[in-house]
């Protein structure tokens, strides 16, 4: 199908992009990789008046080491995220998760920022960002602000970004020594979105789990931390039994939907099983 007609502009700085969004009003939309937007446009499920292509803004691309965190430009593609040496070293969970997104062609175009801004409940990267406690750097008419991952994902396809704000970069805290991680994605075909996904990061010391972070994909309108699993794991022994016991509460507090690919009941079941598997992997059990 063919998108509804729109105007197009390609600013070269973030300031210009924000100006273009203001000028374009309510119906202006940012496009970065376009890998979520294009299907939506082609199916005519959206009809923006103007697309602001942020692809030409140099500042929004690439990964840099910024002390205790990495700064990843929002336009960095999934392909670059999964292959970047800094990301692999300090935020391996993000690289691992990016590798599970869609397929190679889409990973060549789709961007980390676009994925987070899109806030698809079935998106994988928001979950990793939540588990890693990333911070989003956004710029709008009032300047820049930082938004913690836990506040960023608001609802189905809704982030904390205002319509005239641009997501510029993502601050990813470095995972220090002793952390293990895993993203367990469960889907019906390789190319499909996650039915449920679990991102786990576990810190181990002498056979004990000292800290655990577990975040879930597609278990509600936004990615969600499995906090009761996390607290059950803190201080627990890094054993299969302890992990299995903690994982039984993985679905607590979640609000998964029933759709074509799974019922809510099955998603809850999967959340428990996959949490057990993801944490075990992360803990090296």
């Amino acid at each position, binding site marked *: *199908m*063919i*998108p*509804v*007609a*729109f*105007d*197009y502009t*390609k600013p070269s700085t973030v300031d210009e992009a924000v100006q273009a969004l203001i000028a374009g009003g309510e119906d202006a939309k940012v*496009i970065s990789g*376009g*890998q979520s937007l*294009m*299907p939506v*446009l*082609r*199916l005519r499920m959206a009809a923006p008046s103007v*697309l602001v*292509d942020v*692809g030409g803004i140099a500042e929004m691309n690439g990964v840099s080491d910024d002390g205790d965190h990495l700064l990843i430009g929002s336009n960095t593609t999934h*392909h670059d995220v999964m292959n970047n040496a800094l990301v692999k070293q300090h935020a391996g969970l993000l690289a691992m998760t990016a590798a599970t997104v*869609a*397929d*190679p*062609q*889409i990973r*060549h*175009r789709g961007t980390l920022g676009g994925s987070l801004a899109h806030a698809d409940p079935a998106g994988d990267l928001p979950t990793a960002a939540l588990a890693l406690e990333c911070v989003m750097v956004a710029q709008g008419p009032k300047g820049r602000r930082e938004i913690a991952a836990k506040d960023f994902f608001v609802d189905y396809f809704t982030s904390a970004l205002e319509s005239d704000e641009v997501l510029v970069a993502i601050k990813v805290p470095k995972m220090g020594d002793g952390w293990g991680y895993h993203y367990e994605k469960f889907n019906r075909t*390789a*190319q499909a979105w996650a039915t449920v996904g679990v991102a786990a990061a576990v810190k181990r010391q002498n056979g004990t789990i000292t800290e655990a972070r577990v975040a879930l994909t597609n278990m509600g309108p936004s990615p969600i931390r499995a906090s009761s699993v996390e607290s059950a794991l803190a201080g627990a022994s890094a054993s299969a039994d302890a992990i299995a016991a903690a994982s039984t509460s993985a679905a607590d507090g979640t609000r998964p939907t029933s759709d074509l690919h799974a019922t809510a009941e099955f998603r809850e079941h999967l959340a428990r099983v996959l949490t057990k598997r993801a944490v075990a992997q992360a803990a090296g059990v």
Partner: protein
Amino acid sequence: MTHVPISVTVDGALYEAEVEPRSLLVHFLREDIGRVGTVVGCDTSNCGTCTVLLNGRSVKSCSVLAVQANGANVLTIQGLAEGDGNWHPVQQAFKECHGLQCGYCTPGMVMSAVDLLQENPSPSEEEIREGLEGCLCRCTGYHNIVKSVQFAAEMMGGK
């Protein structure tokens, strides 16, 4: 619906054109400049039949706006083997291993395989299968496509 000027290099030739911002790269290729070797199979970015290399990397040309390709270099199935009667090793391998039937998925499969092999010259079967997950084929069951890519890797010295 003002048109926007773009210039794109496709299969080695420079094209200057005015396009509607909404026009898809694949429609630009097919309808504006007559490169009909690249085809369309879906409207949700799933089938991969439209795959081309954009600045050297595989992308789905239905999911890129023509304006986004301004200044870029596009390689399609038609430009893969330079010169008449020439064959790229991946094309050769697809013929040798019967990696195509109706041929509709073929442009996308071949371009994806080219990208895959430039990134990983000696992929395992599993890596090939995963590397082609963005392309659907209804005819071959993929068995011979996988064999074709293995054979191409061998020919290209990867194995």
